[in-house]
C-alpha cells in the first residue's frame, strides 16, 4: 500500500513538474517519467500488457515526437506565461485536494457501477475475440493519423511550388 502511494505521488509530482517546468524539453522528459511511473503502477495492478504499452509507446514514442517538435520550434518558440499561473497553482492544488478528499469517498458509494464478477479466458481471447471491433477501429485511427500527417506536410510543398 505504501509503495502504491509512493508511486502515485511520484506520478503526480512529475505531472506537476511537466506543466510547471519553464524549459519545454524538461517538461517533455518529466511527462516521460510520469508515464514510467504509470507503467509501473499498471504492472503492480497486474495489468502487464497495459504497462508495456504505456512504457514503450507513451514514455518512448510520444516523448520522441515531443522532443522532435520542440527541436523544430525552439528558435523563437518561447512564450511568456502569465506570472500568476505558477503562483496560483499551489493554492488551487491544495483547494482541490481538500475537495477531492471530501467528495470522492461519498461519490464512490453513490455512482452506480457495473456489477463485479470474475472474467474467464486469457487476455488474447478478450482482445482478439471479444473486442475485435476495437482492433478494426484502431487500424482506422492509425490510417487516419498517417493520412492527416501526410496531408499536413504535403500542403507546404505545394505552396512552395506555386
Amino acid at each position, binding site marked *: 500500500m505504501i509503495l502504491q502511494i509512493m508511486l502515485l505521488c511520484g506520478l503526480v509530482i512529475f505531472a506537476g513538474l511537466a506543466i510547471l517546468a519553464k524549459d519545454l524539453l524538461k517538461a517533455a522528459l518529466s511527462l516521460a517519467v510520469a508515464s514510467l511511473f504509470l507503467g509501473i503502477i499498471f504492472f503492480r*495492478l497486474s495489468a502487464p500488457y497495459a504497462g508495456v504499452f504505456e512504457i514503450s509507446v507513451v514514455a518512448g514514442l510520444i516523448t520522441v515526437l515531443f522532443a522532435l*517538435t520542440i527541436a523544430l520550434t525552439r528558435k*523563437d518558440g518561447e512564450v511568456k506565461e502569465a506570472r500568476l499561473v505558477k503562483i496560483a497553482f499551489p493554492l488551487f492544488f491544495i483547494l482541490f485536494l481538500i475537495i477531492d478528499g471530501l467528495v470522492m469517498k461519498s461519490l464512490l458509494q453513490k455512482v452506480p457501477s457495473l456489477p463485479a464478477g470474475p472474467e474467464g479466458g486469457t487476455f488474447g481471447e478478450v482482445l482478439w475475440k*471479444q473486442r475485435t471491433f476495437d482492433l478494426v477501429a484502431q487500424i482506422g485511427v492509425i490510417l487516419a493519423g498517417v493520412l492527416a500527417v501526410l496531408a499536413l506536410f504535403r500542403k507546404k510543398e505545394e505552396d512552395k511550388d506555386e
Partner: protein
Amino acid sequence: MSNLWFLYLFFSAILIFIGIYCLLTMRNLIKLFIAIEIISKGVSLVIVATGAVKHSLLLAQSLVITYIVVEVSLVATALALIINIYKKNKSLDVRLLSKLKG
C-alpha cells in the same frame, strides 16, 4: 478493496485537475498538449484501477491499449499541426490563433 479504489480515483482526479488547470491558464501550444497527455494518463489510470477492483482487468487492459493507440495517432496529428502553426505564425502563442480568419 474500496479503499484502494478510492486511492486510485483520488490520484487520477488530481492528474485530471492538473491537466485542466494547465489547459485553462497556459499559452504555449506544446504545454497545452502536454496537459492533454496528463489528462489522458488520469483517464487510463481510472480505467485500469476500476478494472482491477471490479475483476474485469482483461477488458480494462484491452480498452487502455485501444486508448493508447488513439492517443498516439492524436499526438502525431496534433504535433504536425503545431509545427505548421509555428511555421505560419513564428510563435507558439495560442492567443495569436484568435487572429486567424476563416
